[in-house]
């Protein structure tokens, strides 16, 4: 798409405005994270900055924040990788190969149905399941639950991107003698790379922020960031300082990872796209 220069200026202004609006609460969080509680709750602009919130977050005996961060990272990365592989393969199979109409219909309905269930009702059975197979309070249980929760959307995105893709390229590769798997890796994946990148980002983000299942499937060893910082929202008060520090710090690795990964995933996968 080629736009004229006039639009370019307006474009920058609009994006700049959006960036400012987006950043504002985040900056507010950062400022709160270096304030004492009483300064936070008086909303004053002049205050004495302090690092005590971060100190408590990282070094207090009560806080398992570093463990939570590690857990969150591992869970998010692994479940994203699993979802990518499973959904890419599965979506390709469903979209490009002949299956009985009824089978694909039922599968699609089942997946969508599952996606609509309020999380509340699924937590109990999942707890029993994980407890039963001995995965309670292990990262694997949360990873599995996140994979299941994200698979519907991932499959739909992959299939919708594939639906748009003309079949000629793959047929050409087949004529050249490539195997199904080879075609899939060398031809299809680069072509749907933006879709896969979107799936990766969304799965990662969702997993990073997921609270309900992480809370109920873990105790102390496998707890994630959302579970960890929920402890700051207590029965009789909210520990604003620590919560802001945690929120600010928890977002950084995710932002860094994603901006790095997004570009790399798309670039690496589109390399070799036969345009």
């Amino acid at each position, binding site marked *: 798409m080629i736009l004229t220069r006039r639009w370019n200026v307006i474009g920058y202004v609009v994006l700049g405005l959006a960036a400012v609006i987006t950043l504002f609460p985040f900056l507010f969080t950062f400022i709160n994270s270096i304030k004492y509680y009483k300064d936070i709750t008086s909303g004053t602009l002049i205050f004495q900055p302090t690092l005590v919130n971060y100190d408590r977050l990282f070094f207090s005996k009560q806080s398992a*924040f*570093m463990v939570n961060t*590690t857990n969150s990272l591992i869970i998010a990365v692994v479940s994203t990788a699993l979802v990518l592989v499973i959904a890419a393969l599965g979506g390709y199979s469903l979209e490009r190969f002949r299956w009985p109409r009824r089978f694909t219909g039922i599968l699609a309905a089942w997946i969508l149905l599952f996606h609509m269930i309020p999380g509340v009702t699924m937590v109990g059975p999942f707890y029993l399941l994980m407890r039963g197979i001995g995965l309670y309070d292990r990262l694997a249980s949360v990873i599995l639950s996140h994979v299941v929760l994200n698979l519907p959307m991932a499959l739909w995105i992959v299939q919708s991107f594939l639906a748009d893709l003309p079949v000629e390229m793959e047929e050409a590769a087949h004529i050249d003698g490539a195997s199904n798997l080879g075609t899939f890796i060398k031809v299809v994946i680069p072509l749907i790379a933006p879709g896969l990148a979107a799936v990766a980002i969304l799965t990662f983000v969702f997993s990073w922020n997921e609270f309900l299942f992480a809370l109920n499937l873990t105790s102390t060893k496998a707890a994630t960031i959302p579970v960890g910082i*929920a402890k700051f929202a207590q029965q009789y008060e909210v520990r604003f300082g620590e919560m802001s520090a945690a929120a600010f710090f928890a977002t950084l690795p995710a932002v860094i990872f994603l901006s790095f990964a997004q570009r790399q995933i798309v670039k*690496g996968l589109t390399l070799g796209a036969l345009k």
Partner: protein
Amino acid sequence: MTTAKKLDRRQFLKITGVLSGTLAATSLAACAQPQPAATPVPPTTAPAAPAAPAATAVPAVSTGATVAKVDPITVLINDSPWFPGFEKLVRLYEEKSGNKVNLAVTPFTGMLEKTRNATTASESEYDIVNLNEGWYATFYAGKFMAPLQEIDPNFEVDPNIIDYNNAMRWSHDKNYSTKDGIVYGLPINGNIQLLYYRNDLLEKAGLKPPTTWDDVADISKKLMSAPNLYGFATRGQKAGFAVAYDWLPFLRGYNGDWVAKPGEDWAVTINNAAGRKAMSKWLELLKTYGPANVADLGQADLQQLMLSGKIVQALMVVANWSAMDDPEKSTVVDKVNVTVLPKPVEGRHATTTGIWVMGVPNNLPDKRKKAGLTFLNWALSKESQLEYTKFGAVPVRQDVYTSELAADPKYRWMRAMADSTQYIVESVRIPEGPQITDSIELRLNQAIAGQMSGDDALDNMAKEIFAVLQKAGYKTKLG
């Protein structure tokens, strides 16, 4: 084919790059494990006082080498202002007894579900669970807790432990906590309501601390100057058990209650004359002397009002005390004091319990049950409770409240606590409690938000409570 090979290699390198970058970041994060606690920041310092000789009749387990050696236990508990105190007590126990205790700290939001999951599994993962007043009835009534006297036939409840209206017991015949019920748990946090007020402002104006609600109104009239200084407020927010909890002492103060006599007579009486008086008094106080957004006030907001010096009096719980003298949180350090909750001129004092009890799940082998009980006994002894107080928590023994500690200005809240023990009234302690408090909560919030009149709110509450009780099989009637 050479192009294909090049693609493969470049692809491979890119993907490896991303993966190793992730791995590197992860291992960096993992390497930065927290050091064992640096200096935690407690509001009180904790010198280990020598154990005072126990003057109680029942030989309680004291802090000494007489504690039996048992297996390590795991305690489920939520993070809260009194948790640091509990944690220090646990470390003291480990030091004195050589027994190990693991703390599974959970956000408050997950406590009920975790407790339920653990107690309904084939074997509980926790040896001790903390039950909030709002839901202990389900666990007692459902026989999910081990009767303490079954674990140890010699077990007896120390009479110095405040019983918070039989919160430790349950009678399966009466379906309620009664004096002769089975002992299923021991209190660990004696949270009740108190009236917080600005001592400095009252003294400057030559006013005495309020004893009746009319005093509260009087003080408010004289001292408030909205919007910078409000006179009085309770919570008004609908949030689980917020505004309902704050209104109950009004109801009880006028000698009303949600049913005629919990445990005996389940006729719904919430909308009788006493209820109406309680409702109108409460509405009047809040609307006249409280902030404009009182319908949105939660516990944190109310505490903030006091801490930032914007309100003269507030109905809060003792758990809020630790923030008052904390220089990081409070702009009114040493300016706040507490007193027994006021009463209506023609009524009585009442304060509602919002306590936590600790119990031992029933789905445990005997050895683990005994280990849990060993800790419980130790924690409830007088010496331990004195240390517990110094660690910043809320003790549960009357002899601690009347001890020498109460004379220390740092513990000036203990006097009000000691005086309040006789006025303790329980909240709604039946398994169907949450449904009932949800109804009271919603209707109260609608009343204070101006969405319906106080009388209509009461009548709606009555209808809903009646429906719940009837469906659950209680012998009840309306009015």
